[in-house]
């Protein structure tokens, strides 16, 4: 009797110990989750119902102050605010500019990062190390300073313009155009992408590359079939973070871009402040959110696929 009791007790206590640890872990994770729910989740929900026309409760004062507020006429709200944004003559131009700049920036940044990372992986050496160190410089420059510097560099009295003047040629003034915005976003997005992709490339074992070379594979074949697939997750991370970051950017388009069309980040600030139309600015924010979710879905798919291939799930 005593023996089986003791055995039973030992098993029970082992179960209790596991239960105790997982209970402890649960309570440790509650504060950060609560903070995220309260300070990020709740405002998002409030903003979403504000865009649908729920103007009572916490949204009462912003509805009092704003102009062109559409209040709900059904139990589920109203789409009038969304309609007014879609009917705005500037909106689709701004949306197209935003998506275009994000796409171009991501493609250029990925190309440059892949090129530099592959060069460093295959060739190595001093030149590659110096180049990578140089590309990390934008990481240490605050974005406002960078935007101001790029503006001074490309404006009517800037470096290229002055240089070409000496030879009697005309270099276009790039500030207040979408080209300057693209230059700015590429400049600021490069460091993160290079860090991710070069670290992904460095983790590819030498043996695989050398075996492929011994088997007679050409350089492009090695890159296409070995290096890129093995560094797939870091490449996807770099691509999605660059695209989502550029989509919501404000400082670079504000300093360097045209008044219209501009990127949606600047438009949201304009609608919230000087135009005093907060509901429309919230609508635009959710449209960017929807676009970013598409990219986020791609990111999740890539990670799940990679986990499945490596047998983690």
């Amino acid at each position, binding site marked *: 009797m005593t023996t089986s009791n003791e055995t039973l007790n030992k098993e029970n*206590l082992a179960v209790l110990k596991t239960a105790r640890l997982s209970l402890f872990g649960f309570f440790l994770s509650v504060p950060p989750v609560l903070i995220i729910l309260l300070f990020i989740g709740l405002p998002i929900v409030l903003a979403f119902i504000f865009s649908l026309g729920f103007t009572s409760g916490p949204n009462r004062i912003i509805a009092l102050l704003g*102009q062109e507020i559409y209040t709900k006429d059904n139990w589920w709200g109203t789409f009038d605010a969304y309609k007014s944004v879609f009917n705005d003559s500037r909106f689709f131009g701004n949306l197209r500019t935003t998506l275009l700049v994000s796409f171009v920036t991501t493609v250029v940044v990925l190309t440059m990062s892949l090129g530099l990372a592959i060069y460093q992986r295959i060739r190595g050496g001093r030149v590659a190390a110096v180049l990578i160190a140089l590309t990390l410089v934008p990481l240490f420059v605050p974005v406002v300073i960078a935007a101001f510097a790029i503006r001074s560099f490309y404006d009517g*009295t800037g470096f290229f313009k002055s240089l070409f003047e000496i030879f009697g040629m005309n270099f276009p003034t790039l500030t*207040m155009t979408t080209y300057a915005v693209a230059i700015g976003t590429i400049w600021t997005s490069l460091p993160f992408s290079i860090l991710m992709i070069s670290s992904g490339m460095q983790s590819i074992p030498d043996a695989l590359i050398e075996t492929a070379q011994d088997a007679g594979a050409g350089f492009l074949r090695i890159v296409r079939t070995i290096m890129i697939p093995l560094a797939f997750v870091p490449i996807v991370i770099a691509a999605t973070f660059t695209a989502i970051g550029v989509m919501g950017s404000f400082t670079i388009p504000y300093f360097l871009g045209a*008044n219209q069309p501009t990127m949606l980040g600047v438009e949201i600030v*304009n609608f919230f402040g*000087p*135009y*005093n139309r907060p509901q429309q600015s919230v609508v635009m924010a959710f449209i960017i959110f929807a676009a970013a979710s598409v990219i986020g879905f791609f990111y999740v798919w890539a990670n799940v696929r990679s986990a499945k291939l490596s047998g983690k799930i």
Partner: protein
Amino acid sequence: MTNYDQVRRFRTYLIGEKVMKFKVSKVAAILATAGLVLGGSVPPAVASKAIRFHLSGDVNVKDLWEKSLIPEFNKLYPEYPVVLVFDRNGANDAQTLAKIIGAKLTKRDPGIDLIDGPVTQLGAAGMLYRANPGLLPNIANVPRVLIKNGRGGIPYRASTVLLAYNSKNVKSPPRDLKSLLVWIKANPGKFTYNAPAGGGSGRAFVQTVLDSNLSPGEIKSLVERADKNVQVKWAKGFEILRDLNKFTYGQNGTYPTNNQATLDLLSKGLVDVAPVWSDMIASALKAGTMPKDVKVIAITGPSFTGGPAFLGIPSMSTNRDGARLLMNWLLSPAAQNLIVAGSMNGLPVIPVSMLDPVASANISDIDIRTLRPPYLSANHSDMNAAWAAAVPGK
């Protein structure tokens, strides 16, 4: 093993052995001591006489307050320290208004005792504490019409938008709006104004062009209330502005984003003529960031807008006495001299004859009672949005 033993071991596993060994009395003693220590270290509530001042404007006003007004005031009244909160160009005006309105609705302290910013909006909504004029003796020197326009706010400084021109390249500047528009088309790429959403100088230019196609009654109604019917008449003015796209700086329908960007273009010589705030150009000339060739002139028919900046005391403020004291001091000749001289170069709200003659030598010809007032802020918001849809990039 008894049931009680099992329960004890379960409890031990849940909360750890060391804690179990602590006797309840020890725990109670520790908690009590902690309570006393924490309770004792909370400082007694001090009747704070600090004046919390919220400033929504451009950086030159911030410099005026930080470098001249606050130090002088605190020399005279050291028991009322002034705490400055700065919001550049009113970027967060919506939140500030929400804070003050919310405080009034929930009967709480708004965190602001005195505000220089969207005061007429607050006054129109009944959110301001209106001091009895008997409590503000210096207000007797301020013109009545300015006080009426304040809707409960008290004016303390003024500025107006003027036309700045590079006298080296522009020998005879245009003196009225019509000849300005002719000059712009005759000299492509040499004029610009900032987007109205970004700064008051461009906003004044846009409003003036729109007003040139409105009757005086229509202009008055836009100044006094939100009027969508009159806004329809802006179409002609926007058409004129759209036609200017090919002739302004860049000649591609792009405009600088704020007041300072326009001043930068002017100082680099990229444009020859631009609308600027009187105080900003005077400060830039004095500081040497603007070439000495740049001069200013006030155009007519209609003139650019201008007017006073207003101070308001939110009705739930906890330090109304201090705020009133500061307000009264700002209307005194000593404070008005600081506003006129020094780095700000603003316009005073009391008669020039009461000021220091040396400091006020340059401003004696501007009568602030005749400055054209800007629209009500709701109409300005609509104007900003309508301009952005009608003009740039077209």
